[in-house]
């Protein structure tokens, strides 16, 4: 009988310890310092992947036959602001992108001017952080020459994308979507400001009239409704300080994994 008792004690100890462990893990998930500590795993992934993947190593490209019949849209599907709606009603003819921040030569570029620049078309796989993948054909202006034209200053380290979709659920505050890429990702040959999806102008749900494509990253890095590009030295003092809208909600800045 002593044996059964021992087993009972052992079972209870195991169950009790597991429950305590999991409750502890939940507490860590909730705390800011716990979350910051866990994010070090992702910081290490960033360093390891920068070391392991070449600067210009290309994301796989696919054939026309692989294109999904419907490209799944996620996040903002239809920006609600009057300003955006007016642009959409006008077929985005007056849409302009401001390029500025830490550059020698800030400028503004219209959608028509962007379309007149040399373009790149790529059929790539889009990976949502949720886990699904979808293939589409994107056409757009490579970011590299646009940044070169602006002549980034020595201390510019990140490219910040301003967007027209307001994520705030409160009418009195504005919280526009934003994202940041480091220069390696921003200057990558497949990083483009896309204006066409599958040979047609970008649908509103997919970021019309302009969305970022950074093909070695997860979907949330690829800002939609882009209306501004700003070079910055650090994003520590911008908005939530984490370098992006979803990053400010706890998602990791490095989204290569």
């Amino acid at each position, binding site marked *: 009988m*002593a*044996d059964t008792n*021992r*087993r009972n*004690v*052992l079972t209870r100890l195991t169950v009790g310890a*597991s429950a305590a*462990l*999991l409750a502890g*893990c*939940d507490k860590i*998930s*909730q705390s800011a310092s716990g*979350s910051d*500590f*866990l*994010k*070090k*795993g*992702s910081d*290490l*992934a960033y360093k390891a*992947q920068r070391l*392991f*993947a*070449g600067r210009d*190593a*290309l*994301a*796989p490209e*696919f054939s026309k036959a*692989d294109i*999904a019949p419907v490209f*799944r849209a996620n996040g903002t599907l239809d920006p609600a602001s009057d300003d955006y709606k007016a642009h959409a009603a006008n077929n985005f003819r007056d849409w302009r992108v401001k390029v500025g921040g830490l550059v020698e030569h800030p400028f503004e570029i219209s959608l028509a001017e962007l379309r007149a620049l040399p373009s790149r078309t790529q059929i790539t*796989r889009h*990976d*949502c*952080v*949720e*886990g*699904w*993948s*979808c*293939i589409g054909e994107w056409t757009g202006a490579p970011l590299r020459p646009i940044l070169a034209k602006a002549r980034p200053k020595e201390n510019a380290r990140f490219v910040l994308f301003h967007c027209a979709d307001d994520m705030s659920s409160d009418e009195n505050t504005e919280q526009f979507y934003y994202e940041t890429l480091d220069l390696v990702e921003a200057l990558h040959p497949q990083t483009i400001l896309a204006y066409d999806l599958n040979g047609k102008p970008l649908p509103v749900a997919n970021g019309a009239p302009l969305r970022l494509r950074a*093909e*070695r*990253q*997860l979907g949330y890095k690829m800002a939609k409704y882009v209306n501004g590009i700003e070079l910055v030295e650090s994003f520590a003092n911008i908005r939530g300080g984490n370098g992006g809208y*979803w990053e400010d*909600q*706890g*998602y*990791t800045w490095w989204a*290569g*994994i």
Partner: protein
Amino acid sequence: MAFLSHAEDAPETRLVYRHTLWVRIAHWVNAGVLLIMLMSGLQIFNAHPALYWGVTSHFDKPLLSMTAIQTPTGEIRGITQIGSARFDTTGVFGASEIFGQTAVRGFPAWATLPSWRSLASGRQWHFFFAWLFVFNGLAFAVYAFASRHFGRDLLPKKRDLENIGKDIIDHLHLRFPKGEEALHYNVLQKLAYFTVIFILGPLIVLTGLTMSPTMNSALPELLFIFGGRQSARTIHFLCAFGFVIFFVVHMVMVILSGPLNNLRAIITGRYGIEADNG
């Protein structure tokens, strides 16, 4: 640990040093890390509770999905679909209770980390502990090869494999090796440990890496090997399931073959065997 001492020991028991310190450390680190990897992995799965085969997600024909429907009376039912077979799995898969309310979610709150829905947090846990899983696994592999633990104890030999029929029958009759024979892993143990450590472990790491878009640019071969990102995700999930099956069988065998003796062995290293001349 006094209560772990000679509980099940026959009168003529001799203690043998069975598990070295490194094996014991690797075992317990792995046990904790795998639990967190599994639960945070299920949290990540819950963000899109469906699996596909191939490069992309064919949303209309998943291999497996966990969804929820609302009945005309307003009740939420969880539905698990495997291929074309549908099962009502309310309470466990598809819809289950959290904070006293029925919620639409793949795996239930008790199986995920954190318990509430947070893809961001699940990813933080998963990608932190993934490093520990890899480092611990590599350290163990280096130790196993350097100390010859691998060749001596884990790799099934030709002679082992020839006796596999007898071993299966013995296991089915719950007859476990005694005496000197118990000093070595039997062929089923060797196969199980070898498969989990040297096949399932690397496979789950590689399929995990195959889901990383940056890795895809660095090592596109991985995509080719696993048949695309969504196939890799499915294999990753199946590997995790494999670890769960291993864990269940491992626990059953530990309990059936003398739980306290086994537990003592994996904590202190010392395993009791019946003396042959007893």
